């Protein structure tokens, strides 16, 4: 399963927006998938990713699924946000 984050917007900021995105993913994209399903999170096209939004989506996906791959994650806000989540939200990917 590949999740293209840009489909949720180029500017991904705020917890309520992240929570809404995660709920939509849960209903339409990841519903019924097994815990060991390989999930690819594609950051292509994302311009701004803030830790509040990402904590509601990336951290939760990482808790739900065992195999997560991040692609096209070179954007600086993406890199810095992932760093923050690894340090303060126990993100393991």
């Amino acid at each position, binding site marked *: 399963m590949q999740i293209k984050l840009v489909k949720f917007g180029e500017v991904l900021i705020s917890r309520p927006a992240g929570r809404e995105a995660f709920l939509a993913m849960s209903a339409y994209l990841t519903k019924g998938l097994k815990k060991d399903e390989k999930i690819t999170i594609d950051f292509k096209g994302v311009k*701004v*990713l803030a830790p509040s939004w990402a904590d509601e989506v990336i951290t939760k996906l990482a808790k739900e699924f065992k195999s997560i791959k991040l692609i096209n994650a070179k954007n600086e*806000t993406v890199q810095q946000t992932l760093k923050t*989540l690894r340090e303060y939200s126990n993100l393991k990917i």
Partner: protein
Amino acid sequence: MKNGIEELAYNWITANAKNVDASDYYCQTRDNFDVKLRAMINLFKKHINENNAYIISAIAGEIGNNSFDHNIGNWRDVMGVFFAAEISDKEIKICLADRGQGVFKTLKKVKPELKNDVEALKTAFTEKISGRAPENRGNGLKFVKENIKNKKMKLTFISGSAQAELNNEMEITKINKNIKGCLAIIKYKQYAN
């Protein structure tokens, strides 16, 4: 406070509730703030390195959204935030302010041993803690701190009688004011990188 948007932000946060200015810089709701933040990104992209514009926007987004996250349903009087940005030949400046509960009152609920505004600000910028426990939050200001340092920006963050000055280092001092709520001023001069 200096002239321009700094003075406007200071006046907005310290005004008597009935005199609070609902000018172009006022965002009553998170949606209002989001619209203005996106407009700011588009403005900055015309003047500075695109990546830096995105990082600055993420920092402003975290601070502004914190105001809504921690004060929703609990504003002291006027809901929402003051949010203004200006760009000159020398500097980008962003001011954010809210008339909410302030950092000390918010964090005291989850860390009762906090004694004052200075301790509260230090905790907010250095510890994984959130006033909205048991929700697992509390990473936004750490992201802010790290990226202010990385981009050689300057952040002045005031809440109550405490002022945090962040750049390469962080210094938190007691001030002779009592700012009810939070006031943040971001400055960025490194246009070229």
